[in-house]
C-alpha cells in the first residue's frame, strides 16, 4: 500500500515536470551522458551529475574552463560550451533524481 501511494505520488509530480522540460537543456545535458550516464546517473567511476547542486556544477565547469581546476579531459569539454549552456545543463541535472 505504502509502495502504491509512493508510485502514485511520483506519477503526479513527474507528469507536469515532464511537460515543462527545457529540450535544449536536455539535449545539452545528453552530451555528457556517454561518460556520466543517462541523465547524469553515472554507472561507475565518473561524477554522478543527477541531482547536483546547480551553483556547484556551474562553479566546477567554469573552473575547468578557466584552467583553475586541473583535469585530464574536462577542461577540453568545458571550453566548448558557452556559460549560458553550462547554466542550462546545471538546471537540467539538478532536477534529475539521484539514483533510480
Amino acid at each position, binding site marked *: 500500500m505504502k509502495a502504491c501511494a509512493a508510485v502514485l505520488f511520483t506519477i503526479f509530480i513527474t507528469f507536469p515536470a515532464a511537460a515543462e522540460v527545457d*529540450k535544449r537543456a536536455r539535449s545539452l545535458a545528453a*552530451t555528457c551522458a*556517454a561518460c556520466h550516464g543517462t541523465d547524469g546517473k553515472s*554507472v561507475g*567511476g*565518473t561524477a554522478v551529475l543527477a541531482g547536483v547542486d546547480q551553483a556547484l556544477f556551474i562553479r566546477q565547469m567554469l573552473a575547468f574552463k578557466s584552467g583553475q581546476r586541473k583535469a585530464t*579531459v574536462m577542461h*577540453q569539454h568545458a571550453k*566548448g560550451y558557452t556559460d549560458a549552456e553550462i547554466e542550462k545543463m546545471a538546471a537540467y541535472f539538478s532536477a534529475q533524481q539521484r539514483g533510480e
Partner: protein
Amino acid sequence: MTCDRRAFLKIAAGGTLLTAFPNIAFAAPELLKKKGPRVVIVGAGFGGATCAKYLRLWSDKKIEVILVERSPTFISCPMSNTVLGGSRSMQDITHSYQALGKKYGAKLIRGEVLAIDPIKHTVNLAKGYLKYDRLVVAPGIDLLYDQVEGLSQKIADEQIPHAWKAGPQTALLRKQLEAMADGGVYLLSIPKAPYRCPPGPYERACQVAFYLKNHKPKSKVLILDANPDITSKKGLFLSAWNTLYPGMIEYRPNATVTAVNAATRSAKTEFEDVKADVLNIVPPMRAGKAADLAGAVNVDQRWCAVDFRTYESKAQPHVHIIGDAVAAGLPKSGHMATAQAKVTAAAIIELMNGRQPDPDPVVNNTCYSMVSDKEAMHVANVFRFNAEQQNMVAAEGGGVSEKFSEEEGSYAKYWAKNIWSDALR
C-alpha cells in the same frame, strides 16, 4: 545469451513461397501493422541502439520504435583491441539488447534488411515489410574487399581477419596471435582515411605489442599505413611505442597494401612484398549496405551527406543517417554515433510533432586509446553546428592528453562502462 533471442520478436513465417521472392513487396505481408507514429531503425550499433532508447525516452513512449538488427548481441568495437592484448575477453565486450525492449519498449526484430522504398516508406525483410513515418539508417561500415587483390569476405572470416567490426574476426585474430611462434611478425595494414575509428589501428599496434612483449618478446609488429603519417594522437602513440615497446613496432607510412596471398602469407605494396606470420589487413571502408538500399549514398559513392540539425539524408527525405556512414568533419567513433543518435532522436520528435528542431545542435566526442592493460590517453572535442558552412565545426578547447597514464586508463574503463549503459540500458 539465450535470453537475447527471446528479446527479439519472433516474426511468424509468411509462407515459404513468398519468402523465396523477398523483393516482391506485394507478395509479402505487413509485419507489425502500423497503427500510430512510428520510426524504424536499421542497425543496432552504438548509433542505432542509442537512437531507439532516446526516441522512446524523450517521446514519453508515444512514438513506436522498431529496431532491426542482424546480430543477436551487441559487440563493442571500442575496447575490442584489448581482447587482442589479452586484458579483456570477448564476453567483456558483448552486451545484451534486452533492456531496449524490456525497459524502453522498443521492438527488436532480428533480421536482414533486403530492400528499402523511401517513396512508399517501407523496409523489406525476408518475411514481410514494415511501414515507417521516419527511417533511421545506422548501417556502420562495409569493407571494400575488392580493393585488395586476393582478399574476400571468406578469406577475411577464415584466414586474414580485419577485425574492424568486433566479433568472430576479433576472436580469430587473437587465436592467430596465440598460435604465432616467438620471433614472428604481425603485420597490420591501415587503409586511407576516412575509416572507422582514426586512432584504432595505432591502439591495436600497442595492444598486440603488449601481448607479444609479455609472451613472445622476440616478435615484431609491422605497420603498413596507406596514410602519409599517423592520423591521430601522433605524439602520444610515438611516445607509447618508444617507451612501452621499444624496438618492437616498425611504422611505414605511404604504404598501401594492394594484394595479399593467403597461401604464402604475404602482402604486396607498390614498393615491396612483405611476409608475415599473422596478417591483419584492414581494407578501405564505405557506408554499410543499408545506406545504399535507402538511396542515401551520395558522397564519393561511399558516404552519406546529411543535414546536421536532423541527420536527415540530403538525398532522401524522411531517411536519417547516423554514425560512421555520415560524411562529415566528425570522427567516425562509437561516441560520435551516440551523440548523433541523440540529436536525431530529438529532431525526429520535433518534426513528427510539426515543430522546428533545435537549430544549433552541439555534440562532443571523447576517444580513449588503451596503450597497455592499464594505461590510456584520449582526444576530446566539442563540435557545434555552423549555419554558414552547414557543417559541424570543432569548438575552442579540444585536444589530446598531456601524456598517457594509468589515471586515464581508469577513465577509459569508466567511459566504456557508461557509454555501453547509455546506449543499451
